[in-house]
């Protein structure tokens, strides 16, 4: 539709020329394409304005209608997620829903809420791993305290290529340093997360950062500009040219030339963020002062001003001459699109400006009034006395185009469905030890201590379960709150690659099982959908199947999605990354005695396997380490069986019957048991599985990754109680071994010894894998 045939009259005056003449250019189709807008999107923008946009406006449309800000390829799919609890009496009611604000909030009882969200910083980290990861932490922490919440924990979901590559090692080291640098300085404990290494992430690592905070219900703040005449403040350090157009950058595929996009990567200053955090929290508890607040994250000043105006059903007018700047001669395009870090937009009640200013003076931070809330619906931007942009705010936030993409099921997904293990010979007993060590030494399975020793995971003095167990747990005692929050992240890309629907469900149930093993009941989810280019039908198929699978699991367990992030165009060289819908779940642990770790501490426990002997070899890590194949049928998921298992886990933990619990996941049953022993290598175990189980295969029994399973360590006197409770709950439970102090890992199948090795030797494979790989670089 051209301007001439548009039904909308050109009711607004054409803005005068920009004071910076370099911005007064003709908007050519090439320029539109460079801004990542499709021709029809540009036509839509013209229609909205009733005229041709100027360059500043084109930049504004470009970032606001990018995938990163507008979810234009995923919005329809995201509607499949339940955003509130079906059971209105259950704990964990949603107080702020997904998409409403910067982050969602759930009720955790006694007037307290937990605000949490995960967000990606993949593209910047691929180019500048240290700064990319650091600012990823900074961005998510701002999302949380913007809501009025005191951040209390961090976690990450990280994905890298193979550590054999020096380039991958550089990215891995840089990302971990970046997270450590930023999070440690803020003084928020980083209590773990998940890390996978797989060749599909070569050149396109994933860096997803999560933050959770606590707040009183009445302290929830909104990102809305309300009250005509209320002043709009800019707080935080000055604006520079860094991170220009970062949101658009994140909405493109990475190529060899992406390194030239380095200016699109932001530079973080955790000290500034710490000041901003404290100042904002101090300001927000002043009764009636703050009307609305929003951080300047993706698309910076642009996004924060039009989103607050849109949410407040108001107009907003800002004057760029008043914006604190740390570079000279910045023009309106640069100021509006800069993604300089650690800045916030705050709207306060008129007449109370001094109260805000005093707080920021105390913390030696800028607080500049840059505009005010206006009647109407427009975002008007002035620079040097001239209107440089004039756009209906809602058109930027609500009228971004939404696309349905064609989807096509990839051939490898079809092939995986009919896969059987028959063409692979079963393992011989004498091969078990080598295969086991190989698995323990795979960086995905190996100890992640190399990573988290660099994170301050104990600051705030609340960490109850440190990284390395099934879930991280913080106790909020120093805040005077008798509550324990558990958090877990999960997503096995191999499963999602081979069966996206089931793979996403496995991410969900594993995450929830991790919480259950720690004694926590899951309350809500935040997800980070990391995929390739959605314009490719096979990528879109994977994306939509993953979302459908996840949505189904959310509904079944009545665990809603309260926020998250979509990161598309994760491609490099050979194509898209494996589908990676990262699931993160927050849960609560009721009593202090219910906090359960995955490590054995007594040395005389009986091991009980819940869920039956594993029998599915497909898609396992064993297939990778032993056969060098990413193939196979993804293990079955039975949501009802999973629910029965988790209910049993929690009830047995609450009954005081469980001294340690660990879910069976990557690497299978032997790896699970080994990890339970590794806290103290003087422990040993005598395992006897009886038969080879339903598959009649040693490899599938020991290393298969069948779902719905967990291993409990039970004190001898509690064994009969656990077994009878399991029987009543309809959960298969069998004794598989006894822990001792021999320091030997021994296993018997079909009456024959298949394994007899020092725990210390196994632990070395597991402990040294990552440090050794990293010392080679």
């Amino acid at each position, binding site marked *: 539709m051209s301007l001439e045939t548009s039904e909308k009259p050109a009711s607004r005056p054409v803005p005068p020329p920009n004071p910076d003449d370099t911005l007064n250019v003709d908007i050519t189709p090439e320029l539109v394409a460079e801004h990542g807008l499709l021709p029809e999107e540009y036509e839509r923008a013209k229609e909205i304005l009733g005229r041709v946009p100027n360059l500043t406006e084109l930049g504004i449309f470009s970032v606001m209608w990018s995938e990163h800000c507008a979810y234009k390829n995923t919005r329809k799919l995201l509607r499949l997620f339940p955003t509130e609890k079906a059971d209105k009496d259950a704990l964990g009611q949603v107080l702020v829903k997904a998409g409403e604000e910067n982050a969602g909030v759930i009720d955790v009882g006694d007037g307290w809420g937990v605000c949490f969200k995960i967000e990606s910083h993949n593209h910047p980290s691929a180019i500048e791993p240290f700064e990319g990861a650091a600012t990823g932490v900074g961005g998510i922490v701002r999302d949380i305290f913007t809501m009025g919440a005191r951040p209390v924990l961090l976690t990450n979901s990280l994905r890298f290529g193979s550590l054999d590559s020096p380039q991958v090692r550089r990215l891995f080291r840089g990302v971990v*340093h970046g997270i*450590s*640098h930023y999070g*440690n*300085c*803020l*003084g928020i404990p980083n209590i773990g997360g998940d890390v996978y290494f797989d060749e599909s992430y070569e050149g396109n690592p994933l860096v997803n950062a999560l933050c959770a905070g606590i707040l009183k219900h009445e302290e929830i703040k909104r990102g809305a500009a309300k009250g005509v005449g209320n002043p709009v403040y800019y707080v935080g350090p000055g604006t520079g040219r860094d991170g220009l157009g970062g949101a658009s950058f994140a909405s493109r595929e990475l190529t060899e030339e992406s390194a030239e996009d380095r200016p699109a990567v932001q530079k973080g*200053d*955790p*000290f*500034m963020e*710490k*000041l901003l955090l*404290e100042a904002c929290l101090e300001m927000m508890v002043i009764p009636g002062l703050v009307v609305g607040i929003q951080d300047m994250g993706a698309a910076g000043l642009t996004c924060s001003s039009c989103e607050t105006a849109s949410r407040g059903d108001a107009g907003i007018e800002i004057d760029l001459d008043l914006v604190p700047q740390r570079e000279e001669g910045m023009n309106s395009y640069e100021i509006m699109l800069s993604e300089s870090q650690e800045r916030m937009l705050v709207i306060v009640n008129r007449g109370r400006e001094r109260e805000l200013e005093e707080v920021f003076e*105390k*913390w*030696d931070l800028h607080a500049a009034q840059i505009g005010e809330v206006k009647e109407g619906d427009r975002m008007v931007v002035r620079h040097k006395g001239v209107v440089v942009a004039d756009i209906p705010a809602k058109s930027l936030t609500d009228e971004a185009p939404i696309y349905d993409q064609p989807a096509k099921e990839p051939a490898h997904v079809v092939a995986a469905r009919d896969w059987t293990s028959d063409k692979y010979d079963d393992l011989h007993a004498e091969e078990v030890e080598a295969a086991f060590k190989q698995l323990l030494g795979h960086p995905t399975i190996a100890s992640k*201590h190399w990573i*988290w*020793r*660099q*994170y*301050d*995971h*104990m*600051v*705030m*003095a609340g*960490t*109850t379960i*440190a990284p390395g167990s099934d879930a991280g747990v913080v*106790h909020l*005692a*120093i805040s005077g709150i008798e509550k324990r929050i558990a958090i877990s992240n999960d997503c096995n890309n191999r499963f999602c690659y081979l069966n996206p629907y089931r793979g996403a469900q496995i991410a969900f149930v594993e995450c929830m099982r991790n919480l259950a093993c720690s004694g926590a009941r899951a309350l809500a989810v935040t997800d980070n959908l990391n995929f390739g280019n959605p314009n490719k039908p096979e990528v879109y198929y994977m994306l939509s199947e993953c979302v459908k699978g996840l949505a189904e699991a959310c509904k079944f367990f009545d665990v809603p999605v309260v926020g998250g992030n979509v990161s598309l165009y994760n491609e490099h060289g050979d194509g898209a990354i494996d589908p990676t819908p990262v699931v993160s779940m927050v849960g609560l642990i009721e009593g*202090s005695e219910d*906090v359960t770790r995955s490590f054995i501490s007594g040395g005389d426990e009986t091991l009980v396997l819940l869920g039956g002997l594993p029998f599915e070899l497909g898609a396992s890590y064993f297939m990778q380490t032993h056969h060098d194949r990413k193939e196979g049928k993804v293990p079955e998921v039975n949501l009802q069986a999973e629910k029965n298992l988790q209910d049993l886990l929690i009830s047995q933990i609450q009954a005081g019957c469980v001294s340690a619990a660990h879910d069976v996941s990557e690497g299978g049953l032997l790896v699970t048991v080994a990890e339970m022993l590794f806290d103290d290598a003087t422990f040993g175990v005598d395992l006897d599985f009886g038969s080879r189980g339903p598959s009649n295969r040693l490899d599938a029994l020991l290393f298969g990754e069948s779902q719905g399973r967990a291993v409990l360590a039970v004190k001898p006197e509690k064994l009969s109680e656990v077994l009878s409770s399991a029987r009543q709950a309809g959960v298969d439970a069998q004794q598989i071994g006894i822990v001792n102090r021999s320091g030997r890992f021994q296993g018997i199948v079909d009456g024959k010894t298949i394994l007899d090795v020092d725990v210390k030797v196994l632990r070395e494979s597991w402990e040294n894998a990552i440090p050794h790989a990293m010392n080679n670089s």
Partner: protein
Amino acid sequence: MRVAIIQFPGSNCDWDAWHAINDVIGLPSERVWHKSALPVETEAVIVPGGFSFGDYLRCGAIARFSPIMEDLKSFSKKGGPVFGICNGFQILCEAGLLPGALVRNNCIEFRCVNQCLAPEDSTENFSKANLGEQIYLPIAHGEGNYRLDADDLSELEANGQVLLRYDGDPADGPGHGNPNGSVNDIAGVRNAAGNVFGMMPHPERVVETFHPGLDGIGVLRAFLSPLLEEEPVEMVSA
């Protein structure tokens, strides 16, 4: 208020220290902003951990110019007990209240672990008899490598000014052995007068049953002993 916990911009263990002293030890304490005066009723001061002023330039190098530091110096000169933890230790060294300096860990990385330590017989209360031969306290720092020139080091050792040393056999895994390259495995020291303490480990992080241990309580009590009635001790004169 009896114990003041100084809050610099970038302090991030002030809250933890407050909780340990106020709620666990039971001495009324307050956080005091670095631009304020030290309240007159102050009986002991904690300089907490964190990243004061972002640790830019050098750890603690900017904090020593904060307005409250003058009050702190005169407080310590009069024999008032002062305890710097982690970044607080770095600040006290920069301010000249404690000997030595803390530089980058020799592993060039941040280290966070529950660390094995051996207390020394340094003061009447900070002693092996009171604390035990071996304790565990968390460390969390990137610049905890204690340095002192040879002469001063001999003097420090001769005076019994070392409070505690990194201990344990590295073969026993993380948290054992010297984590940062500190000279003589020194993890904490006091001044000659015995009223100013500093250490890299965080006693305030091991005071609750849900923490990895409770060894922090003894360490904090050893420092605060002049204020704890049940353990009356004469204050060392400056």
